[in-house]
């Protein structure tokens, strides 16, 4: 399966139509798997149609497709202790942070500019700061304008749920088929520790009363969405000592009400952000604590493990943010949508994807069949396409895969400082990378220099570029076989 592949770089960098076509041809499917059932066996086909191009709803899709957020709805109707709407900063990457707010018309211009340049674009989201359901007029105007120009783009909305029940019918009419509700509690006692106040029905509520109203509206909104077949993702912020244990209960409630995905995200509480939690010293969870909780939730609502807690104006594949390339001042006053790049990219992906699915299922089948009780955590440097195709020194994050008797699964990611900036690495950065890799058995990348490699080895982190450009699962299964003394997968392809 490690036969000639389409270089993702040529697909994702901004290229001309001809180049894209040439790449598509040269990469003609190596295996005979094109058109084979390319969907994970755990969802029905109608659902798969909805999620197959959505990087957040499908882990598989997140290798190929990109999202963009537009910040058009800054008004909010609740106050959360992890949010401070007074400040934002261009160097930060976290939800709620943006460098420019847009009017619906500016948003339309920006979406068209991105669609013309970033062929992977498949999803437009409105995700704060503020609440899109509360600041509804701007949300609605933006969705309507974009949908009439780019009919196949998926529309996605994030909300705290308070005003959600008021707009579910309009959402359904506009074909918004992905909604994220942030639900941090189902017990108002706990809610009162997270939300100082809400604004509802023309007045401010505080304390238990506020949390109770919010809880009821969230459950109602979720049920209404489920009844209309709109897929929901529940985001929960894990706040150690406040709701960490409680999220097990939250998971049960949302599953019962039809939530499609549950995404548990770590609290970000740096004091410099000036949030209540930041200022009171409430800590966020460590990567291992988050993973332990997620492991406990497995078996409840399907878990999202590849969330990056993107800035609210992020653009690009999930691990990257090209937002700075598309600020308003870089976008011409008039833009016309040109569908050609996106269409070509989709054709190429459809083929590459068929190949990947086959490689992946073989690799996973082998690991499962091995019947070993061994567990392997592998960190991977990738820039998309499901391959190990990023240099160690260029990686800003590593995706973490777990191989065990239940298969090979993406279980998270670890953010790191880029080691190699302008030609040489820095010692202190390497120390941070090593710290970020806590618990990881092996690191895979497309290429790594001898010097960082030796130092990593010395620090006890095994690293190899032997599998450069292979599919991730293929490499992981080979490692798993080697590690637990099994027969490796016979070379196919």
């Amino acid at each position, binding site marked *: 399966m490690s036969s000639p592949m389409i270089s993702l770089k040529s697909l994702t960098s901004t290229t001309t139509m001809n180049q894209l076509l040439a790449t598509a041809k040269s990469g003609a499917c190596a295996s005979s798997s094109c058109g084979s059932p390319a969907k994970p066996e755990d969802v029905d086909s109608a659902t798969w149609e909805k999620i197959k191009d959505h990087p957040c709803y499908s882990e598989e899709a997140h290798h190929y497709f990109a999202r963009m957020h537009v910040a058009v709805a800054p*008004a909010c109707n609740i106050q959360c202790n992890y949010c401070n709407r007074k400040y934002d900063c261009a160097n930060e990457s976290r939800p709620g942070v943006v460098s420019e707010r847009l009017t619906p018309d500016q948003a339309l211009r920006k979406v068209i500019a991105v669609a013309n340049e970033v062929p992977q674009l498949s999803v437009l989201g409105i995700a704060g700061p503020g609440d899109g359901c*509360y600041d509804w007029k701007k949300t609605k105007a933006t969705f309507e304008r974009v949908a009439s120009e780019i009919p196949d783009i998926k529309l996605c909305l994030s909300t705290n749920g308070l005003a959600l029940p008021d707009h579910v019918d309009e959402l359904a009419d506009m074909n918004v088929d992905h909604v994220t509700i942030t639900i941090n509690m189902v017990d108002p006692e706990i809610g009162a520790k997270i939300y100082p106040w809400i604004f509802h029905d023309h007045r401010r509520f505080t304390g238990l009363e506020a949390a109770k109203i919010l809880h009821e509206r969230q459950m109602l909104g979720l049920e209404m969405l489920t009844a209309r077949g709109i897929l929901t993702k529940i985001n929960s912020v894990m706040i150690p000592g406040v709701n960490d244990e409680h999220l097990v209960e939250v998971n049960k409630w949302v599953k019962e009400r039809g939530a499609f995905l549950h995404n548990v995200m770590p609290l970000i509480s740096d004091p410099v952000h000036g949030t209540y939690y930041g200022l009171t010293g409430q800590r966020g969870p460590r990567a291992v604590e988050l993973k332990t909780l997620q492991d406990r939730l497995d078996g409840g609502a399907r878990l999202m493990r590849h969330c990056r807690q993107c800035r609210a104006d992020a653009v690009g594949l999930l691990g990257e943010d090209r937002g700075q390339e598309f600020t308003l001042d870089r976008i011409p006053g008039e833009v016309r949508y040109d569908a050609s790049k996106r269409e070509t990219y989709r054709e190429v992906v459809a083929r590459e994807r068929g190949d990947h699915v086959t490689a992946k299922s073989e690799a996973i089948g082998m690991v499962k069949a091995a019947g070993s009780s061994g567990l392997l955590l592998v960190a991977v440097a990738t820039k998309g396409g499901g391959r190990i195709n990023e240099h160690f020194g260029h990686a800003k994050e590593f995706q973490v895969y777990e191989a065990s008797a239940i298969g090979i699964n993406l279980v998270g990611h670890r953010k790191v400082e880029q080691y190699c900036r302008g030609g040489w690495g820095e010692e202190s950065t390497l120390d941070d990378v090593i710290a970020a890799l806590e618990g990881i058995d092996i690191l895979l990348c497309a290429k790594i220099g001898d010097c960082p490699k030796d130092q990593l080895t010395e620090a006890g982190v095994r690293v190899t570029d032997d599998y450069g450009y292979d599919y991730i699962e293929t490499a992981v299964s080979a490692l798993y076989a080697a590690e637990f003394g099994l027969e490796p997968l016979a070379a196919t392809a």
Partner: protein
Amino acid sequence: MAFRIIASQCTQCGACEFECPSGAIKFKGEAYVIDPEKCTECKGEFELQQCASVCPVPKTCIPA
């Protein structure tokens, strides 16, 4: 009687603008401002001033 906005505190979220029952709040130039001629302090409409109740920053919509 009227309310006013302390511009240096304002996050420019615009929530007060669409909650104001009197159409007294507008974005002018660089900031949200309340037109004292139009502001009724929400009397006859709501128990508490809408702009102050929705504003995320304490002491930002205050009596003029």
